[in-house]
């Protein structure tokens, strides 16, 4: 089976679906000739022509708003926003328009639009190129939000997203775009949207992560293993709708929960996960829930970035804290 990194896996998904679906269109800044600043759409314009792979003027609000219109007209637009920091200028089109359009039109317009966005920190980029604003999207009803943590899921989730027939924001953890290669079947397959995945089983505590943080969680799991503890690691994969039942089931088993994400702590997704667990599995908790996250400050420029981003060491430290706490209930 061919070994692909995440860039190639997503590229393959786009390519394959585009050849199958004549209604599909790729648009955004520099997605054509340049193949995207991360090369995710590389080769598509050469193959499908500039009418279907479109370099647009520099205007994110327009990219999303025009995509809405394209979908209303029966096309399947796949829009790229070059970096997550530039989603903010498109917020109205994304949250007030695209997400609400099904409701506004009383179910008439199911808008299949996929908005691809390189996501998160870790590449020593300038300001506004390293954030993780998933909270804003997940808080908004109507949007589906996914973030793969590996090439296999990336292809499968992308194919699911392209066929969902609803607006999807596809967050691509840019830090691990080329970090690993893995077996990615050439064939058509999908990874279901809305389902988390237990990437490693364990009994003593649960670590919830997604995107680039899954790797950190797995590294922490190894550290904990060497200390004699068994961590279960859950990769959320879909951020909205969130598979909280999977998390709750795991916490019922392990009794301890660590959530890790790059976004600032306050109202990061960890807050919602903690709240749902506190609603539905309070009596299972053997220790306070720990959030290992970005801080409630701005992601610093390159030289300090590593100190902002949570890592295996910080996850392990939190895990030790949780494990050291006495049982508070049977």
């Amino acid at each position, binding site marked *: 089976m061919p070994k692909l990194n995440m860039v190639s896996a997503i590229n393959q998904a786009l390519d394959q679906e585009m050849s199958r679906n004549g209604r599909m*269109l790729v648009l955004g800044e520099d997605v054509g000739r340049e193949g995207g600043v991360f090369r995710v759409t590389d080769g598509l314009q050469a193959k499908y022509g500039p*009418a279907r792979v*479109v370099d*647009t*003027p520099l*205007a994110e*609000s*327009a990219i999303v*708003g*025009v*995509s*809405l*219109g*394209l*979908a*209303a*007209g*029966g*096309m399947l*637009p796949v829009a790229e926003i070059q970096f997550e920091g530039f989603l903010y200028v498109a917020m*109205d*089109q994304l949250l*007030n*328009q695209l997400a609400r*359009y*099904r*409701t*506004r*039109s*009383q*179910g*008439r*317009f*199911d808008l299949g639009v996929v908005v691809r966005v390189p996501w998160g920190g870790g590449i020593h980029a300038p300001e506004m190129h390293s954030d993780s604003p998933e909270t804003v999207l997940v808080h908004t*009803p*109507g949007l*589906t939000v996914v973030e793969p943590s590996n090439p296999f899921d990336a292809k499968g989730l992308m194919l699911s997203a392209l066929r969902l*027939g*609803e607006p999807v924001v596809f967050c691509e953890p840019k830090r691990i775009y080329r970090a690993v290669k893995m077996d990615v079947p050439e064939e058509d397959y999908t990874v279901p949207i*809305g389902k988390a995945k237990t990437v490693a089983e364990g009994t003593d505590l649960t670590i919830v992560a997604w995107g680039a943080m899954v790797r950190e969680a797995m590294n922490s799991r190894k550290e904990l293993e060497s200390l004699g503890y068994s961590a279960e690691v859950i990769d959320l994969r879909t951020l909205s*709708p*969130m598979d*909280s*039942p999977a998390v709750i089931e795991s916490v019922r088993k392990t009794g301890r929960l660590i959530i890790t994400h790059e976004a600032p702590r306050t109202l990061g997704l960890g807050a919602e996960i903690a709240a*749902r667990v506190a609603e539905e599995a309070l009596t299972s908790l053997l220790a306070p829930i720990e959030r290992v996250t970005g801080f409630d400050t701005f992601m610093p420029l390159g030289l300090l970035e590593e100190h902002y981003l949570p890592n295996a060491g910080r996850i392990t430290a939190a895990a030790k804290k949780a494990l050291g706490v006495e049982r508070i209930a049977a």
Partner: protein
Amino acid sequence: MNSRYFGRFDPSRGEKLQILDHEGKLKEELRPDLPDERVVRLYERMTVMRVADQTALTLQREGRLGTYAPFYGQEACQASSAFLGPLDWLVPTYRETGALFMRGVPLSLLYRYWMGDERGMSMPETSRILPVEIVVGAHPLHAVGLSWALKLKGEKAAAAAYFGDGASSQGDVHEAMNFAGVLKTPTVFVCENNQYAISLPRKEQTASETIAQRAAGYGFPGLLIDGNDLFAVAGSMLEALEACRNGGGPFLIEMLTYRYGPHTSSDDPTKYRTAEEVEAQKPFDPLLRLRRYLESKGMWTDADEAAALEAGRLEAERAITAAEAMSPPAPMDMFRYTKKTVPPYLEQQKAELAEFLESGVGHA
């Protein structure tokens, strides 16, 4: 393109297309393909439109409608939707109740919408109309995308985006025109310049002499017209739409008009303009001049006028009756359209509300 209007009147030099003046005199040489028989029919519908609009305001005052945005004075602009072909799309704002009505949306549905019932926005799959936009300036981008899709699919059709003078200041409107210019989409941008954005007069909205002239800065033609002149409305719309269907476009039409009524039923216009200013605009009424024109042609009488008004009254009344006869929306409706499938956590919330409503506490 064999242009009679676009490119012939340069908005940056203050040139404006007017075919029928306010006294009802027609410049025959500029007359579009709008036979007098059609003018009569349109005038009748515009009369009904005006009555329906006035009725809505009355209903609002009686507490039978929520906030309502009247279009009194803008009937010729609103009637522009009558010139859209069956395959063309209408992309409206809250102000376009008249345009929706002209395009065949049942008045009862429109009243229902303004009563605060979302079902008022449920339009048949075949109606080529996007839902009403509330965020000022957001929807011209949708029209650009939609018309781009038409072009890609090879449909001979256009999308017309309606927006106000206030909307012209929004970034999204700029981006929409720029995209349309680059992509050469069959989009007609219809700027209904009614001189006000709530309380802000047009002169303070922009230091530009006209909005129409901005089109040049996006590489396509813009035309300034007298928006109270149905002939100018017809001519510019027909020319732009026809060109769009034949691979042309986009176009911008700035329709100069005047809002006689309040911004919405919650607005108090005395805060920002005098009664005299409004009165001074009344001689330019879009219906008045049409009536004068038809009378001068011997095609309209006082009896016709009375009949048209009565027809309007009846139509509005039937629409209210139908709207008020509708059962109220069910609380659980609010979960219906959020997503194609209700996610588990929302399902849980739905159950919560259902339980609460059943408990009876909910009905205070």
